[in-house]
């Protein structure tokens, strides 16, 4: 009977996957404990889909305001970058990727621009463009993938196990209740 053929295959696959899952969950717990003891910094939101567009908006605001000679808006935008959580999140992500050079370069450009804007210096336009280039470099760095193999494997194993379990259990239920799937 076709069902029995699949059932026997699934039983083995299911057992193996369950074993992997149990080992993996335990293993991951140990790794997390070790990481906490070694002083790895607190977690941050690595999904930067809101932060980067906001930073980009600030930079565009700075450039547009400088074109119009409106230094008040430029100052507001700079303050927004400095105090807003979005730059803090991006910085943490860059720190985790060991991109300290990019952070210091962006920070330096930002403080130079801040000083120039405070004195309403005309060369602030050039500085804003440097800031914009620094931001593009950061974007390029963030486009490089960092893979959390533990998480990836855990997801694959959990979903795989659930499917294998479903394929194992459904024919049994079908047979038991005498219904067709």
């Amino acid at each position: 009977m076709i069902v029995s053929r699949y059932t026997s295959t699934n039983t083995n696959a299911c057992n193996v996957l369950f074993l992997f899952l149990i080992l993996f969950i335990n293993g991951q717990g140990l790794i997390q404990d070790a990481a906490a003891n070694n002083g790895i910094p607190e977690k941050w939101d690595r999904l930067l889909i809101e932060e980067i567009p906001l930073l980009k908006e600030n930079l565009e605001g700075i450039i547009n305001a400088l074109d119009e000679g409106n230094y008040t808006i430029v100052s507001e935008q700079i303050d927004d970058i400095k105090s807003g959580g979005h730059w803090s999140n991006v910085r943490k992500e860059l720190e985790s990727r060991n991109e300290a050079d990019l952070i210091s370069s962006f920070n330096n450009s930002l403080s130079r621009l801040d000083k120039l804007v405070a004195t309403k210096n005309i060369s602030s336009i050039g500085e804003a463009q440097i800031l914009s280039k620094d931001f593009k470099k950061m974007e390029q760095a963030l486009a490089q993938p960092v893979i959390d193999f533990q998480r990836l494997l855990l997801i694959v194993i959990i979903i795989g196990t659930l499917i294998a379990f479903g394929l194992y259990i459904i024919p049994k239920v079908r047979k038991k209740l005498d219904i067709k799937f």
Partner: protein
Amino acid sequence: MTIKSSKIITPERNERRDLFNYSLIRRFYRSKHYPLSLQLFFVILLVIFIYDGFIGPDSSDANLITLSLSGIFWYPMIFGGLFFLGRSWCAVCPVGAIAGAANRFNLGFKFPRQLSNWGLPLLAFIGVLWGFREFGINVLREPLITAVWISGVIAVAILVSILFKGRVFCRFMCPITTPLAVMSRVAPVEVRTKTMATYSNMSNKQRQYASSNTIKKLPLMPEMSKADNIGNMTSVGKIDPTCKSCKTHDCFNGNEETEGCPWGEHPATMTNNSACSMCMKCVHSCPPTEPMRLRLRMPFSELWQVFRPNIYEALTIFVLIGIFNTFLWHETIDLFFPGFKQNLLDGTQSFFPFFSEDQVEKGIIRYVMSIGMVLGIYTLASLVSSKLSGQKLKTNFANFSYSYLAAFFIYGIIDSTFGQIANNGGLYLTAALHHLGIYLYISPNLIDLSSLEWYSTKWIIEAIVAALVGGYVAYRISQNITGNNTKKMMLAAAPHILMILFLVLIFTTIVPRWS
């Protein structure tokens, strides 16, 4: 006039186009794990998405439920997938799977015949998926609302499946069943029997008869008894001899191991893809050497080989075109009839005093008027076409709607699917990979569609291909319904070809320039 021999599809040519000749495809589709394993996968995903919808991030760009529904799944998988595999999504749909499982324990009530049509799903599609968003209920872009909506859909699916016999929810209640049903006809694959009714080996008289909307409908409906359904099997076309002599009709009735067609279709008489999800239950229940085939065919060819054209399906096509092109109303009406929009708005709002002017305009009037405009334009073309060619308006109206569907599909798939991927692909990719543990940031705009280069390329594909394909389908339909009488054929096709050209130009060229 007889049909050229080169056009006749011989059994040998048909056999060569059977995708089951390829072992990988055969093994995949004939496996007992298909579609169950994929259904399980999507049920698990759906549970995760709903969970994220209730407790996950508030941002629709970060929450899995909104991200998947309005982005990853809808455009590339469901809408884009229609072009290659018809409504295969329905075979693996998690809601359908849950409904299917619940249906095993049904109480056996018959679904009312009055509701056994596309009225309810169309209403849900227009009202809930589109109209409600203007009243602050956006079921596609608000995580919590989306989660509640999907949970509600699942609850209704379970309830309906427990109460009634057959896959009632998928056929007559699912909000996306109508767009999937009409658009699945464009797919280049079909599940059919070895011998089947085709236009290519029919005489001109047979073609005219088959494309006439007076043809007796095949009542293969779940609410009818199986004996009645099987009894009506031979009402159209060629029936495969194996199916004729078959005593059990397992593909339709099911057997000990596999259920019959969940859509209540008999493969031997199935002439279109609109109620075939390629779940392969018929293939599983029929012995491997027997007549079931997964055949390649020319994309869009089903649109001019419609055996049972009906007004209802034609109306559905124009409701869809109207919904997807509501800007037609917005952008054009004030140009042609200044002041009309405001007067209509004032009049309508008195019926809906609880809603703001903007809500009434965007949530009610623009949909109704946009659908009305598209339908009006098409009725006018049908009227001219039927007068010129001496046909019945009903036949003309029902048949030629499929040529507009072809043009709309190309325009829609490029504008919506390609446009959505180009504009937000980076966002979807970043968020989806993030949940898998792959951290990176890709700019949302994968392609800058505002650049002249891309705009021109998109326009060429959208406008030219849509008009050409729509026009060609109209020509082929005209050929079938006029029995190859050249003069009548030209007179019947011309108004529709011109109208397709007009609509395509408005949709692709004039409106984007205004907006």
